[in-house]
Structures are given as C-alpha cells and as structure tokens.
C-alpha cells in the first residue's frame, strides 16, 4: 500500500510542476471558461451572471475547488478510498482520475467507506487551507461587482490595492479581437482583472464538459465491471475477531413475538391473507333470489300508504346532441336564459341546447353530478302527496247548450241606424233639405222606448231633446226640446192613450207626441184636459216633493200636457202596466226618492217613509201589484196592496244599474255595473239563479221581449248581447239561458257604449241606444 501512495505523490508533483503557471488561475477561472465557450461578452462577466450558467457545472466547479484545495490532504487519504463513486471521479481532474483508476485496481479488499464522508471529515479535521492558495487578492469570496465603482479590485498580501488593469475602449477591444489570434481563448480573471489565455488542455476540458462527457479524456467508461462485493465466501475473514455467540442462538424475544402471533392466529384475532380475503369476500353483498315470484308480495311490515316518487321527465328533442335547428337558442332567448340566473325555475329549459356536428365532440355535461344530487335530495327530502291531476280537455268544461241555430228567430244583423246622416239622404229625396239640421241626436242617447204598436220609437238624449222616430223608415218624425238633459223616457203602455213620460232634470213631462192614430191623440188630449176634482188633501210631505203643473201655451204646442216638478233630479220614470200609474226615481231624494203618481187623479204618493239606500231604479210587476226597488246592492219587492216588503233579493254585486222583468213576472234580470247580469227566479230563492258574465264592462241596459223568449243586454264595452231566456210553465223545469249573439256596432264615446236596450213589441227585433248618439235596430 505504501508504494502506491508514493507513486501517486510523485505523479502529482510532476504534474503540478508542469502546470504550475496555469494552476494559479484554474481554480477561479472555470466559470469564465464556460462563458468564453458560450461566446458571451467578457466584460460583463459578473458573478451574478455566472450563476446563470448551468447548475451542473457549478456543482462540478465547487467540487473541483474543493478537490484542488484539499489536494495534498486527499492524497494521503486516498489510499483507503475505495472509489466506486462515479460522481467524485467525474468531478476530479485529470490526474486524480488517472491515479484513482490505478488505485482502484489494487484496493479491491479495502473496507467500504464513502469518499464523500471522508472528504467531509477531512475538511473538519484539518484547517481550512483555501486562503493559503496562491490568491493575490485578499478580498475573499465576495461578489466582485462591489468593486465596480472603484479603481482597484482588492488588496494583496501586503494590504496594497490591486489596481484594475487598464481596459481599452471599444476600439481597442475590437482591434484585439481582430488581431489577437488567441483572443477567443482569452478570459478575464475577475479577482485580478488580468487577461488569461487558456491552454489547449483547458479548452479541451471545457469542450468535454459542455458536451456532457466525462471531463477526463482518459477515463474508460466501458471498462470491465469489477465486483468488489461478491456473493462468494472469502477464504479469509475480513475481520479478525469471530462472530458473537448470540448470532448462533435463537432469539428469545423473537420467539415470544412469534408465539404471540401464533396465539392470535389460533384465537382468530388476526387473519392470514387468504383468510382475510375470504372474509372480505363474505362481507361483500351476497345476492340470492330475493323475490320468488314476479308479482306476489309477502306479508311484511311496510311503509304506511307509500307514495312512490315520480319518474324524471324524459328528454325532448331540445336535449339532443344534434337537435333540429329550431331548438337552438337565438340571441334573444339566450339573453333571457342568462337573465334568469337567479330564478332558474322560471327558465323555459333548464339547459342551453347545443349542437355538435359529431359525437366525438360532445363533452361531459358539467351539471350531471349536481342534477343527480338534486334528484337524491328530492327523493329523501321532498314532501310527497298524492295530487289528482285533471286529465280533461278544457272544452269539456264549457256547458253544452243548444245551438243558437235551433233557437231562432233572434236579431242578428244591423238593419237601421237612427241618426242624422242617414235621415239627411232620406229627406233629400223628399226635397226637404232645410230640416236636416234637426235630425238625429247630437249627444248620447240615454233612453229609448217603443210604442205599443211598434211603429214609433221615442228617444231621449243628452242634447236636451226627445225625438220620435218611425221605426220602419228610420225617419225622425218629431223633435221636442226640453229644458234639461233627458234621463229617461217611456211610452205609455195603455194603447188608448198617446202619451209619453220624459224625465228631464227635475221635471217629468207628460207629452202627447201626436203621432199615429189621430183619434187616440185627440182623445188623450181631452182626457188630460179636465182636472179631476178630489177632496183628498195632499200631505205636506208629498207637496214638498212634487208639484203638478199645467204647461204654458208654447209647451202645450210642443205636446207637453202635464209637468211634474220634483224637488230633486229625476233619473228614471216607469209606467205601470195599466198605464195609469207611473213611478219616478230621484236617487238623491233620501226617503222620498221613489214617487208613485196617478194620472187620472193627478195625485202622487210617497210609498216609503224610510230610506233603504240609494235607489237605482224601480219597476212595476207586469200583472201583480208589486213594486221592485233596486237599491245599490239589493232588490226589494214590495206588495203595494198590502204595503209590505215581500222579498229582498241578494245580488251579491257591488252596484246595480238596471232591471228588467220577464213578461210573465216570475223572472227578473238585473244588470250591474260590475259586469254581471243576474237572473233571479222569483219562485226559487232570493239568490240569483244564474250569474251571467257576458260583458267585459258595466252593464247599462237589459230588456225582455214581450213574446219571444229573448232578452238582451247592452254594456259599456259597446256590445249588445242577445240571449235566449226560456221560461217554462212547468215549475220543475228551470229557465234555459243561452247567449245567442253578440252585436257590436256602436262606437264608444267617453268610455260609454250602449245605454239602453229595447225589444220591438211584436217582432224579434232589438233597439239599442248608444253614447255615439245613434240608435240601432237589429233584426233577424
């Protein structure tokens, strides 16, 4: 062994001598070398930049340094080193590896100790010799850029400044580059600032390092492998002392452990692998024939009245990966969909339909897990109840009624319009043009009435006139001016009298229209001329309510025969069926709002002493001495003979507007401002037999036909609805009500449509007066 060491020493020394000049710089230069090879600029070779160069090299550099530093120390130790560590070999320089290669051949049986450990030990044991190297600069291992701003680079042994060598300007550098053949291998030593020219060996070394080869050229990578530790038993022991006794004796401790395990196995506390697998298999669910038959249930406790969860709705075309184009959202729909992010249940679809042109492009649905989770939540958290779902067509809810065709005749088409323009043409034919200004109403026609023969039509309007029209021709026969707005007109039902009642302002006029039969007209006049004498004293209360006044001459000429001056505005007048009595309504009159007057005696009476509410309208029963009084919400029926309240009809509506009674007297139709029409069967009950919601707005006029089973209603929605209202003589059979026809020819005016509806007494024709100042006749 000693020989080997000596050899190595000799070799070392020789090489040191030969390379002595270069050695000086080598330890510090390696980093720069790389830069040169990489073609980087010399001047900028700061330490910071150096760090950028490959980390592998740095490591090797460091190791190099170490190895250089410890050269001598190492050499002594190396005899013991058993170098199979490739890395350390690689990192060592040429000589080292050479020597090691030699060493390694002979040191086969040396004890296995790691060189790295040894090196580390050495470092700690010996003094640190790095400063003793031939380093002229004493600043130590600091970043040299700290000296950038100074003239000097550091200090030498004696403490003198080492000045920076003069560096020429760029031109010098350029000239140097051009002229100096060794320029490419010249590097700058950052410690001294001197230029150093690298030797060929250095260049070679660098080239090998950059090519990632082992730096040592002579190292044989493919040398035959030497097995240092063989499985073969050596002849001689490695150590001189024999094995310990205990290595030949079985361990008691182990035996104790084993016995414990065996016991545990015996007791079944622990399981062998095979057993454990068997057990695991057993723990996996075992399946067997749970249900012996398909549909026969065994008796068991079960959930009480189980409601099974409904299945999910199956997907439609929109969910397809390739849906028809119409299902894809356009921009508007997409925007709408996105807008409902906070209220997703309002969305039309819970996903955005997408189209993929091939199956492989379809991605996973991102909400899939979430949807399944929500379904799970539904299954165990959502309250369940059985809800009966109606599976009917909506049409089946519509009552089956006889077809209107079978219920003819009824008015269907507009026949005549009673208004200015039309009459103008008519009169033009008769060459009486100068009259035409007087023709037709100019304001809303509030009320109309037809005489008993059906020849003449009376209308009262807001333009303070009443007009009498010939029904068949549409000609206005007469216009009578009044002092105020005409609220209500009615023709006397007595055929022997030619008399109309007109309510205008606070007055009620009795007018002889002087149309039709001359005899009747003149007779009426004579009847009214003589004032009946009676000794009955009119009570003060009545006298304060109404005064009977004889008309003056001009009025008489116009046809006014009597004037009743009331203390309040009169809004409705109505005749008794016989034509002798009539009733007037003053809604503002409190307890004197209803007044019944008799023409033959020229006497009035106030039937009520107490106010029952705002009286809307009154009506006489066609045959019996009953009076129907409609207040705002109820209709009261009074027996005039007994002077008692007979019945109170509950309308269940907010505001009554008008009433009409069936000619037989058992059925009453009430129109209300809250759009309803109520049919009362007086025999049945005080509640409506049927509530008809035929109109869209307030009902203002209702009327029954005298002979045909028809009734009509007009409302603010400008429509006139003719309905079939059949009343049977058989008491067991309820009235049949069928809406027949909706006629909508009036024009609206100030939200008003139709004011009054009247049937022709003989024909199935109907008149309607509207807010558009016209009267229309519809016939069948």
């Amino acid at each position, binding site marked *: 062994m000693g020989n080997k060491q000596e050899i190595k020493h000799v070799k070392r020394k020789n090489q040191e001598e030969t390379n002595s000049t270069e050695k000086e710089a080598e330890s510090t230069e390696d980093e720069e070398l790389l830069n040169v090879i990489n073609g980087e600029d010399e001047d900028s070779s700061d330490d910071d930049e150096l760090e950028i160069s490959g980390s592998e090299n740095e490591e090797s550099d460091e190791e190099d340094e170490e190895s250089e530093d410890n050269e001598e120390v190492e050499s002594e130790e190396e005899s013991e080193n058993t170098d199979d560590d490739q890395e350390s070999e690689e990192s060592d320089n040429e000589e080292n590896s050479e020597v090691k290669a030699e060493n390694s051949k002979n040191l086969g049986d040396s004890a296995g100790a790691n060189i790295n450990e040894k090196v580390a030990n050495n470092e700690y044991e010996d003094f640190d010799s790095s400063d003793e190297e031939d380093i002229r600069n004493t600043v130590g291992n600091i970043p040299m850029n700290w000296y950038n701003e100074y003239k000097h680079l550091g200090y030498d042994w004696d403490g003198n400044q080492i000045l920076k060598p003069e560096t020429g300007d760029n031109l010098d550098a350029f000239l140097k580059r051009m002229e100096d053949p060794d320029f490419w291998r010249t590097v700058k030593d950052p410690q001294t600032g001197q230029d150093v020219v690298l030797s060929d060996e250095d260049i070679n070394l660098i080239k090998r390092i950059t090519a990632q080869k082992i730096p040592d050229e002579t190292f044989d990578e493919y040398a035959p492998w030497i097995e240092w530790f063989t499985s073969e038993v050596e002849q001689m022991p490695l150590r001189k002392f024999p094995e310990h006794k205990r290595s030949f004796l079985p361990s008691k401790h182990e035996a104790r452990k084993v016995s414990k395990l065996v016991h545990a196995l015996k007791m079944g506390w622990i399981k062998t692998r095979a057993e454990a697998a068997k057990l695991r298999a057993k723990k996996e669910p075992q399946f067997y024939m749970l249900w012996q038959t398909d549909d026969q249930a065994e008796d068991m406790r079960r959930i009480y009245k189980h409601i099974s*969860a409904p299945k999910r709705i199956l997907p439609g075309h929109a969910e397809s990966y*390739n849906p028809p184009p119409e299902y894809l959202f356009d921009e508007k729909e997409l925007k709408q969909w996105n807008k409902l992010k906070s209220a997703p249940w309002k969305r039309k679809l819970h996903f955005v339909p997408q189209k993929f042109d091939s199956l*492989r492009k*379809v991605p996973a*649905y991102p909400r899939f897990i979430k949807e399944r989770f929500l379904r799970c939540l539904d299954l*165990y*958290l959502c309250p369940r109840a059985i809800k009966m779902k109606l599976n009917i067509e909506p049409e089946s*809810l519509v009552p089956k*009624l006889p077809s209107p065709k079978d219920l003819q005749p009824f008015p269907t088409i507009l026949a005549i319009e009673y208004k200015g323009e039309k009459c103008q043409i008519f009169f033009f034919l008769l060459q009486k043009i100068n009259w035409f200004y007087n023709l037709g109403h100019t304001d809303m026609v509030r009320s109309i009435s037809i005489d008993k023969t059906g020849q003449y039509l009376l209308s009262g309007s807001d333009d303070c006139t009443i007009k009498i029209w010939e029904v068949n021709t549409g000609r206005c026969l007469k216009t009578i001016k009044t002092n105020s707005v005409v609220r209500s007109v009615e023709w006397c039902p007595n055929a022997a009298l030619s008399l109309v009642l007109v309510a205008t302002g606070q007055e009620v006029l009795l007018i002889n229209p002087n149309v039709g039969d001359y005899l009747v007209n003149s007779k009426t006049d004579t009847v009214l001329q003589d004032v009946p004498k009676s000794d009955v004293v009119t009570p003060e209360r009545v006298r304060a309510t109404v005064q009977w006044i004889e008309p003056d001459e001009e009025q008489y000429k116009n046809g006014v025969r009597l004037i009743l001056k009331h203390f309040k505005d009169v809004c409705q007048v109505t005749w008794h069926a016989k034509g002798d009595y009539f009733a007037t309504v003053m809604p503002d009159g409190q307890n004197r709002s209803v007044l019944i007057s008799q023409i033959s005696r020229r006497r009035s009476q106030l039937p009520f002493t107490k106010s029952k509410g705002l009286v809307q309208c009154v009506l006489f029963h066609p045959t019996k001495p009953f009076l129907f009084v409609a207040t705002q919400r109820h209709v009261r029926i009074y027996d005039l003979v007994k002077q008692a309240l007979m019945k109170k009809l509950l309308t269940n509506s907010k505001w009554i507007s008008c009433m009409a009674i069936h000619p037989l007297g058992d059925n009453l139709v009430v129109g209300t401002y809250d759009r309803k029409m109520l049919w009362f069967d007086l025999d049945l009950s005080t509640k409506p037999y049927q509530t008809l919601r035929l109109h869209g707005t307030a009902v203002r006029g209702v009327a029954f036909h005298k002979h045909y089973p028809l009734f009509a209603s007009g409302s603010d929605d400008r429509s006139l609805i003719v309905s079939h209202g059949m009343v049977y003589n058989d008491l067991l059979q309820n009235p049949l009500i069928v*809406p027949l026809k909706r006629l909508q020819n009036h024009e609206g005016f100030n939200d008003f449509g139709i004011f009054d509806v009247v049937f022709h007494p003989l024909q199935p024709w109907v008149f309607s007066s509207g807010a558009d100042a016209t009267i229309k006749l519809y016939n069948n």
Partner: protein
Amino acid sequence: MVNRKKKYTSGEGAQFMTRKSALKKLQLSLNDFRKLCILKGIYPREPRNRKRAQKGKAGIRTLYHVKDIQFLLHEPIVWRLRDYKIFNKKVGRARAVKDFEKLNKYLNNHPTLKLDHIVKERYPTFIEALKDLDDCLTLCFLFSTFPSLAHVPRDQSALCRRLTLEFLHAVIEGKLLRKVFVSIKGYYFQAEIKGQTITWIVPHHFSFTPMSKAEVDFKVMSTFVEFYTVMLGFVNFRLYHGLNLYYPPKFSCLQQNNEEKQLVDEDIFVAERVAALNLPVSKTSNELVEDDFEIDKFNADGSEANEEQQEEIRKELEKVKNLKNLFKGQKFYLNREVPREPLVFVIRCFGGEVSWDKTLFVGSTFDEDDETITHQIVDRPSMEKQFISRYYIQPQWVFDSVNARDLLPVQKYFMGEVLPPHLSPFIDPEKDQEYIPPEARALYNENELEEQFKNDENKKNDDDEDDDEEDDNEENEEQEGNDDQEDEEGEEDNEENVSKKPKLSVSTGEVYKEIPWEKSRQERQEFRLREKMIKNKHRHLYKSMMEGKQKRAKEIWLLRKKRRLHDEKEKGQKEKKKSEKPKKKIVTN
C-alpha cells in the same frame, strides 16, 4: 268537570311529526336519521292542512308521518347505526393514542349494514323493484365512473361498475333495450323489462368533476348508492335467473388472472369492461326463454273497437320482434375515435357483431380487414384507407335506426356528411299540442319519408323543388286551429284572393256562394259566448287551462317560425353558392 279534549290530539294534528320530534323519539343524530331515511325510503309528507298538521305553528316544517317514524323505531338497522357510533369512538381513541395494533383490529372488524331485508320491504315484488330502477341505474352508472373520493367507500365504485355491467349483460341477453337517445347530458337508454319501461342515463366520458361540499354532498349520494347496489344486485340475480344465466356471470372465453386484475389501471379496467360487453355470457341451460308469445284472440264483446285494439297490439309486438333482431347478421367495426361502450351495448342488444382495433383495446373479435364487415362506424371527416365492401357511417346511424325500429338508409350518415338532427324517441307524436319537427314527421309517416327522400333527390338534381311549401301549408292549417288572430289574417288573405280573380266581361246571375270560413267563424263566436257560461267553480280552471294551451301553441308557433327562417336562410345560401359557382367557372375559363 268535563275534560275538554286537547287540541291536535286527533286528526291531522296527531298524524304528523316534525323532523325534530322524530329525532328526539328515535334518539338519533340528524346524520344517522338522514341515512336511515334514505335506506328505508322514508320521506316527508305534505299534509292536507299544514297548519293543523304543524299543531298550529307557523312556518313550513318538514313533516313525517307518525306511522313512518314508528316504523323506523322497529328497524334493526338503528342498532347498527349505534354500533357505528361506538366503533368511531373506539377507532378515534386508538388513533389518538397511536395504538395501531388495536386500530387495525377495529378497522378490520368494522360493522357492516345488511340491507337485504330492506330491499324486500321496500319492494315487495320484483315488478315494483323494476319500477323504481331508474334512479338506481342512473346513480350506479354515475358512480361507476368515479375515482375514489372522500366520504365514499373505496370499493363502492368498483361494485357499481360490476353491477351495472351485469345489468347491461342481462339487457343484452334478454334483448330488452327499446330506445336510445344521445343527449348533451349523456346516453339515455330505455329498456322494457316485464312490461316496465326503465330509463337510465350513462354520462359522457370524463363526467367526474370535483365539486365543493356546498354544491354536492357525496356522502348523501353514497348512502343512496349503498342501498342501490344491494337492490341492483338482487334485481340482477333475478333477471339472470329468468334468462337462464349463471348469476355472477361467467364469460365463456374470457380468462384473466386475478393478480393481473389488481394491477391494471383505470383505463385498462374500462377497456376490459367494454370488452366484456362483447362476450357472450354462459348459460345454465340451453333452453330458449320463450318470450315471443301470441296474443290469444278473444272476442268477448265482438266489438270492432276491441278488435282494432288487438290488431294494434299485435302490430306493436311484431315491430318489437323485428327490433330485437335489427342488426342480426350485420358486422360492425368501430374506429378508435368512436365511444365504444354505448355502441357495443346497443349493437349487441340488437343482435349485431362488433369489433375494434385489437392493438388498442382488448377484446376485439375480428380485424379491420375482415371482408364480411358490413358497417364501419367512424366519427372523423375522412379516412385514407377504405374498403369498398362496407359502409362507412357515423355513429348516429345506429341510434337513429334503433329509434326508427328499422335500418335507415345510410346515405345521410356517410362519413363526412352533415348529419340529420338526432331526435328524441321519448316524444309521443299523438299527443296534441306537441311540436313535431319536419324530420320527425317524416319518420312517423312513411309515405312522407319517401316523398321527402324524392324531394331531396330532386333537390340534388335540379335544386328547384320546394318541399318547404308543403310544410308551410300544413303550418297554416294547424295554426288556424290554434290562434284566432292568425285566422283572421288568413281571412283577409282569402279575401284578397277573391278580389284578385279576373273579372269576366259578361256577368251572369250570381249564385250565392257560401263563404267557407264564415261558418267556422260563426261557430267560434258562438263558442266564445258559450265559454262565458262556464260555471263559476270551473272558471279559473278553464282559464288556466286555456292559458296553458295558448302558451304551448305559442311555443309551437315560435319553433315553427324559427325553423322556417332557418330553412329560408339555408336555401338562400344554397342559391348563392349556386350562383357563385358558374361565375367562378367563367373566370377560370
């Protein structure tokens, strides 16, 4: 003194129990109660009168039926849940004091829930289990794609994988599949087992995405799966039994080493799963399970309607029989970009043979250069090497053919073609107020199909024909029924048509001609009046029904409009192209 009856001691007040009181009665934690409810299938109930059921308390509480809670009270699982509690405490302690020996011992002997009796209790008959199989299958298929997760037992997804695969085999062997639908969510499959239609969804690839706990609680889902796996196992067992198959299915040709199985990674596992689908399952006996039965003719009434019904049923049966052997004798080869699992399943269900590239996945049965292959399913725009002896079609053809119950003409599905829309088979065309896209209408009506085909041909030949006009006319007709306003527009149109007629110089006596729409108009008017006579009781119902109807009509109208616009646009583009092409030619000349 008379004892006055306390409020809520009878009737609805006594029938219901809030969740809190239920917890108190059962002495369980909320988590355990939840688990118990999921396993036992107990759900809250909606009382008829909530206020009374809540004993006069305000707000909305979760109410359980008292009998349900009593039912839970007698459940042996409750004890097992308590065991779990103890077990968790023991394990926690062992872990805390680092007594790993004990810890291991505990963990190896953890208590397990046995759910067999619950399956039987919840589903007294097999049919009822089948009825409720939808959710079970969907969730199991989802879990079979899951990786191991926190709060999900590690072998659960493996078990799901096994059971779903077994179920698919049963469906294949029994030829039970009826409908397939590829949606953006996944593949919908509908099978008919013992007269029950069962629909399940198989998600597309890579369906698992990590979810936050606030969004999805995997623990709840896992509890569901815990029950569903047991249920599916029993259903599978009975299904296999009914089909004369061994229950844990034995594949006659498949041999794998157990150790290998443990080593394989996920991908290979999936590959094997698909491979297994391609293998026949060995049978217990060779007897055929007779399911093609003839309907007995019985004319008790002798009525025609009955006969017609029977005739219909017979036709339907015939169709289903044909469907079962739809792909019989066809050989399919799947290209590698095609999703294999659904396609193999579908093709095998209808009697086809499938294979794929053997170098990519295990289990292929024949090679690509097999001359007997009839269809190669590709999902790419073009291929370099093509065989003349087979059709190169896109996967949609398989699904559409199944839904049409017939082999569709392949022209439209060739490689690189723009596919016709894939339609949902779950929509009943006979239901009124349902929008049927033109393609679907063509499918339902074979004559139209031919016509459309002809039209398409013509289009290709001269590009002059319009088949859109037909559609438009039909639309008009149908719309008339739906919307009154549109009807009136139609009238106006007609009037215009009348006025446009050329006037003759000699005018003869006019014959009163009944205006065709006048009658319907009148009828409608009459109906509208009659509508107002609906009883007060039904008024709102009618109104809401009509609103719904109108809404649906509007939706249909919107879809139709969109379609029309789309078609017009497309036509315009085609014409443009046509007009551009000759110009280019001129330029090149």
